[in-house]
């Protein structure tokens, strides 16, 4: 027993130190590309930390988003930034990263910044240490009402029933981010070369598997870790993979059908919210008998919308304009 708890501590200590070290290196190493790879590694280690904190739902979301989509986003933005520098000529290529480096060489002022931050860290740490070592929070309340929620996974119950308004607003935020990107009017990048046969094969194999896993996560979310967010981000990753392999949405689908998919999640939520209010209940308070069905419908539309939005976020430019360069 003694060896067991010692090992637990060693593992958690290693993960904690690893996280801090990776964050430090990612933020303060001179090369941008290195920083991005370190940040991807940071996301992967974060997943292990969530598992150790007994939050497999969060680990699933982190793995799909933190490790997959954020990494792909950062890598492709970095490539675009670099490509832009390269276009300006050889001299300018390293300009961006070098300027960044020069600016960090002002240790005196930066030392001054560090002092209040250290004080803040100490204060926060002291605050955390003062908290009671055991607290159950709201888990008892959730457990009491779980039967009425229509699902048996407490996290899904919170996300789609007890605090469904969070999810409503969250899908709205995703949509707003996409509208923001589209309104920037970024020129689409030039169509890439046809993929290598091996990449083609890999894509053909991975895409159906991603679809399958996404559907599985959606289904399993009712009683075990999983759910609309995880399923949506895995499905979105399938879209990202297809975009990377050079596939583009056919123009016939890029207009109205795409837009309907993008807003399906948030509009279903709003319709349900209005209906529950018309039914005399509070906003998004589902009747227990129908809760299971309502959550099912909400999750499916939310999954599709989240996936479409995430893939569109990755593409960066409006898909219906991609041919006019």
């Amino acid at each position, binding site marked *: 027993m003694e060896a067991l708890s010692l090992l637990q501590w060693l593992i958690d200590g290693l993960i904690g130190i690893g996280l801090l070290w990776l964050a430090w290196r990612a933020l303060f190493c001179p090369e941008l590309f290195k920083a991005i790879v370190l940040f991807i590694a940071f996301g992967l280690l974060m997943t292990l930390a969530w598992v150790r904190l007994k939050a497999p739902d969060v680990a699933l979301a982190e793995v799909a988003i933190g490790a997959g989509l954020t990494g792909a986003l950062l890598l492709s933005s970095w490539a675009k930034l670099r490509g832009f520098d390269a276009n300006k000529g050889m001299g300018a290529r390293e300009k961006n990263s070098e300027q960044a480096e020069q600016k960090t060489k002002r240790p005196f002022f930066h030392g001054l910044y560090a002092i209040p931050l250290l004080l803040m860290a100490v204060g926060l740490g002291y605050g955390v240490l003062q908290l009671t070592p055991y607290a159950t929070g709201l888990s008892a309340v959730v457990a009491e009402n779980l039967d009425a929620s229509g699902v048996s996974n407490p996290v899904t119950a919170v996300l789609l029933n007890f605090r469904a308004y969070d999810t409503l607003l969250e899908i709205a935020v995703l949509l707003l981010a996409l509208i923001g990107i589209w309104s920037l009017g970024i020129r689409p990048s030039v169509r890439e070369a046809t993929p*290598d046969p*091996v*990449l083609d*094969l*890999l894509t053909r*194999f*991975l895409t159906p*598997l991603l679809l399958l896993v996404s559907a599985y996560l959606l289904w399993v979310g009712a009683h075990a870790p999983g759910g609309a967010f995880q399923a949506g981000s895995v499905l979105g990753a399938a879209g990202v993979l297809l975009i990377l392999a050079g596939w583009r949405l056919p123009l016939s689908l890029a207009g109205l059908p795409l837009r309907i998919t993008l807003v399906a999640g948030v509009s279903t939520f709003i319709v349900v919210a209005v209906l529950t209010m018309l039914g005399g209940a509070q906003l998004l308070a589902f009747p227990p008998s129908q809760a299971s069905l309502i959550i099912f419908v909400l999750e499916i539309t939310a999954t599709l919308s989240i996936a479409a939005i995430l893939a569109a976020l990755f593409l960066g430019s409006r898909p219906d304009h991609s041919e006019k360069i």
Partner: protein
Amino acid sequence: MTLSDYLSVLFLLAGALFFLAGTVGLLRFPDVYTRLHALTKADNVGLGLIVIGLAMQAESFASVGKLLLIWLLVLLAGSSISHLIAKKALQKGVRMWRR
């Protein structure tokens, strides 16, 4: 401890050994191509042995199937990616190591 427990411990230790070998290779080998070779040992064999070791302890066939699926996936993805990296490196003219 039953016989299958011992066997599974054996497989798991062998898997861990391959991970160690992969890491050492990644650190010590002289160029991209040889490092790729080391990396794929950890990817394919190391994870494979660990999956076999754990599959012996699994309660249901469903979970054995999932374990094997994970391994096959890593196998396929790892080897394709390694191929792509090696090909790209050759195209770019990353030098091969010669004694």
